[in-house]
């Protein structure tokens, strides 16, 4: 009986706070993406043909986002019947976009206009460990092209 109370409290807590955090994060992501739109990002290894001399440097953005209890239960239920794990979809989406944003922010601070050869690495922090809330890490990195003053 006590277990059930704990379980229900955790799931409610996870849902409420997870949902608030997620909504807030998505809003922030949308806003900052708009602000940093001038920085172009490409996954191509080589930069587009350039008309001006540039300096190159590595820029990177890294983020870790945790699953809330509600998401974990929803995902474990989903693992019984299969299908799209919608609970985790938003999580990965947030992590990916946030990592790219942080990378773009760094590029912007350096005065870059373009980032090419952008790559994403995804890692699960609590890999294979049971009874633990998992977290996802996304690491975005690329080559920033900074126009040199000529």
């Amino acid at each position: 009986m006590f277990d059930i109370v704990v379980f229900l409290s955790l799931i409610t807590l996870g849902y409420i706070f997870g949902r608030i955090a997620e909504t807030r994060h998505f809003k922030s992501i949308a806003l900052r993406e708009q602000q940093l739109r001038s920085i172009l990002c490409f996954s191509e290894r080589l930069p587009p043909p350039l008309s001006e001399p540039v300096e190159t440097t590595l820029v990177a953005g890294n983020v870790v986002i945790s699953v809330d209890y509600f998401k974990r239960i929803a995902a474990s239920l989903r693992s019984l019947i299969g299908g799209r794990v919608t609970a985790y979809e938003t999580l990965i989406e947030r992590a990916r976009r946030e990592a790219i944003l942080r990378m773009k922010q760094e590029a912007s601070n350096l005065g870059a206009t373009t980032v090419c050869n952008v790559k994403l690495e995804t890692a699960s922090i609590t890999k294979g460990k049971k009874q633990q809330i998992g977290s996802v890490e996304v690491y975005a990195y690329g080559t920033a092209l900074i126009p040199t003053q000529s």
Partner: protein
Amino acid sequence: MNYQNPKIPEGINISDEHPLKDFAAMLIGVGVFIVAAFVIIFALAEWLVRFVPFEVETRLAESTVVGTLVPAVTTASKTQKYLTALTADLVQQQQLPEDISVTVHYIEGDTVNAYATLGGHIIIYQGLLEKLPNENALAMVLAHEIAHIKHRDPIIAMGRGVTIALAMASLSGVGENAVAETLINQINFLTAMAFSRDQEKDADDEALKTLLAYYGHIKGAEDLFALFQHHQSFEPPEFLSSHPVNQERIDNIRLFQQANNYTGATRPLPPL
């Protein structure tokens, strides 16, 4: 060439379905499946356990209940002899299958109780015997417990108990060794588990028929439940209790009495 990063529309990678809706659908689906699976497993276990030969049940009882619930050596007292004789008479009336044997054990102590357990053992406590007003009431108790044994209720209850224990253990994710350990530890408890309300009612009906056959009437049968009613200050509602509520059992006896309108006098208990 003009390079640009177009704005990507939202909601491509994530579904906009409300997470609670998805969750509720999954919960209901999985819940219904699990409940259905358990209902089938329980029904199957209860049904299959009927085919366990009585001989096997006796051996199972020897390794579990005998020695703990059932005293190993029963005293050859006057009371014990009287109970054994009365039980034998009642067993004859019920026409039990040949392989089933019934053993009655008289235990001294204040406990007001009697029950049937694995291996055809019936336990009756001194506390109950002392409170009974006449032999007919005692016969009602014994006939009721014999009926349980005839219907194989103890082994069915055990099958149900083991299934529940297994289900609980597997649900809470206990390892295999722990399951076996829990089973062994709890087997005594499980065999002493209460029978279902239907089983109780069937045993009551069978006991009334036995009394009618043995005494020619059922007078004294309801004395037993009147006694329970008198001594039980708090009676839980039926859905919380495995036994039918006493008033219902008394009503059941009265109905039986109306259908078989024989009269007679109760037989007093011999001095014990």
